[in-house]
């Protein structure tokens, strides 16, 4: 039973129907436990005071924002190589979720950084990279909406995703270079955890797991929606008398 089985929409919907209840439940539990524990159960950081609690939103959101684009990239590759509709529609379904997570990452990052920087927005390399990622998501979604024929749309958005990913990486290093101005930035990882003592660690992991499951559940459901739209379109295309 190779995974290509699930490229067939009918079988995908069956699988999705089975998985979704667990995904939604586990996501809810993960997020609730992660956030509540983080919010109520952890002490303040000596330096940042209580703003450190924002970590339980910022890091998971940033984590999803990045991985959603990576998932879209893989789905686009699968569409271009194997022409499986479900993967193209899954990429289309994931984009808005990635966009919202990027916005949350930006918001929480700016608010969290505010005490240290004294302003709501600072051109910090990480925040700027997220801003660029936000633009990529916007362009991707806009291209999906702009093209009428679903197949052409899937093709063009896949090409944009491939080329965009290369430029996103380029922008990442450009921003690092530009903000230091003189030398290459030290850390490459986007969401590098500060040196977190374990009391913060566990709720963070749970929260990340919760967000990941939420992403999974959302994408499964939204892909189902895209399949329904596509099926309705296919049937109506055949219903109209020809010519």
């Amino acid at each position, binding site marked *: 039973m190779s995974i290509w089985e699930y490229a067939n929409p009918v079988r995908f919907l069956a699988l999705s129907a089975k998985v979704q209840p667990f995904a939604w439940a586990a996501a809810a539990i993960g997020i609730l436990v992660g956030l509540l524990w983080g919010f109520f159960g952890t002490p303040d950081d000596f330096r940042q005071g209580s703003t450190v609690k924002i970590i339980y939103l910022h890091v998971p959101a940033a984590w999803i924002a990045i991985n959603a684009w990576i998932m879209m990239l893989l789905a686009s590759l699968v569409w271009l190589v194997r022409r499986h509709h479900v993967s193209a529609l899954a990429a289309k379904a994931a984009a*808005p979720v990635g966009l919202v997570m990027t916005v949350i990452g930006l*918001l929480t990052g700016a608010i969290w950084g505010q005490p240290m920087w004294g302003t709501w927005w600072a051109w910090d390399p990480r925040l700027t990279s997220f801003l660029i990622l936000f633009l990529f998501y916007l362009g991707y979604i806009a291209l999906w909406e702009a093209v009428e024929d679903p197949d052409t749309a899937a093709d063009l958005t896949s090409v944009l995703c491939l080329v965009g990913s290369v430029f996103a990486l380029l922008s990442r290093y450009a921003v690092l270079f530009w903000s230091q101005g003189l030398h290459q930035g030290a850390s490459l990882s986007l969401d590098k955890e500060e040196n977190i003592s374990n009391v913060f660690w566990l709720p963070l992991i749970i929260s990340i797991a919760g967000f990941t499951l939420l992403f999974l559940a959302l994408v499964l*459901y939204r892909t*189902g929606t895209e399949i*329904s739209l596509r099926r309705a379109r296919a049937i109506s295309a055949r219903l109209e008398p020809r010519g």
Partner: protein
Amino acid sequence: MMPELGKYAFEVLSAYGLSLLLIVALLAVTLRRGRRARAALRQIEAEARPDGKS
């Protein structure tokens, strides 16, 4: 029960508030759009296969 948030209470609460608001909005839009699309599909399927065979 409410933890002492210190002088950054506004920041922390606004961050949580905005983020959760965005997530709830995303959920609402997703579910509403999903329900409407599925209903439209059922309606078209009924039209296409009045005798119910798929």
